[in-house]
């Protein structure tokens, strides 16, 4: 899998959250991803990147174009921070669970918006969320 393009965006402020989702959409456009799917991906990134600024203060989002074994193309997003981590991941992935006075929709919602969703976290060590949105057909 040739690394077509990898973009790394430092996430430190709310403006970086906007940049991350806009850069991902720009990459999705190069794959001719349907505009609805671009919107779903951009919305998921917004949630995940905001969780970085809210809970970990800073981190990064890396966006790359990927290709699966069948040649299908997609956009992969890795959001990484070294913040407090998530003690109860199962609850954090449940609609409505929040420790930050939010709606508790960010993680479970982002999971519904993309094709692949993975989260690695450990208290005191940080959190890494990986998302993939595939082009159709």
């Amino acid at each position: 899998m040739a690394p077509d393009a990898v973009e790394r965006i430092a996430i430190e402020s709310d403006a970086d959250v906007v940049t991350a989702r806009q850069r991902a959409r720009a990459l999705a456009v190069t794959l001719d991803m349907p505009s609805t799917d671009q919107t779903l991906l951009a919305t998921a990134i917004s949630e995940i990147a905001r969780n970085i600024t809210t809970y970990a203060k800073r981190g990064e989002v890396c966006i790359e174009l990927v290709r699966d074994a069948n040649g299908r193309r997609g956009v992969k997003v890795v959001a990484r921070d070294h913040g407090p981590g998530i003690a109860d991941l199962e609850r954090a992935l449940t609609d409505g669970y929040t420790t930050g006075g939010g709606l508790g929709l960010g993680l479970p919602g982002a999971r519904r918006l993309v094709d692949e969703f993975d989260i690695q976290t450990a208290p005191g060590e940080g959190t890494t969320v990986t998302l993939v949105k595939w082009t159709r057909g």
Partner: protein
Amino acid sequence: MAVPILKQGPFLIASIQSALTDTDVLQLRDDVMAQVTRHRSRGIIVDVTSLDVMDSFVSRSLQGIARMTRLRGAETVIVGIQPEVAFAMVQLGMSFEDVQTALDLEEGLALLEAGFGGT
């Protein structure tokens, strides 16, 4: 980028022009509240036509604006949610149940006028 707010008779029209940071959204909330108070407005339209993403923060903030202005006797109508944005909001799990929405500015104004016209 600040959101311009225009006064049109008893109503205010806030037209979002470009992607909003969280700071911009909070600024919009404060500006709307200040202007509703200053002008004793009866209704507010927030035009989100240009937003390509409405995530949980923006949605929650718009709901907050609607609730706060209602306590001041003013109804808020969100207009121009794009079809793809609406789809993403539903997938995300956002419900806009207690917030008035309309297709576009014209319909939003008609809604406000139907509710508050003649008063």
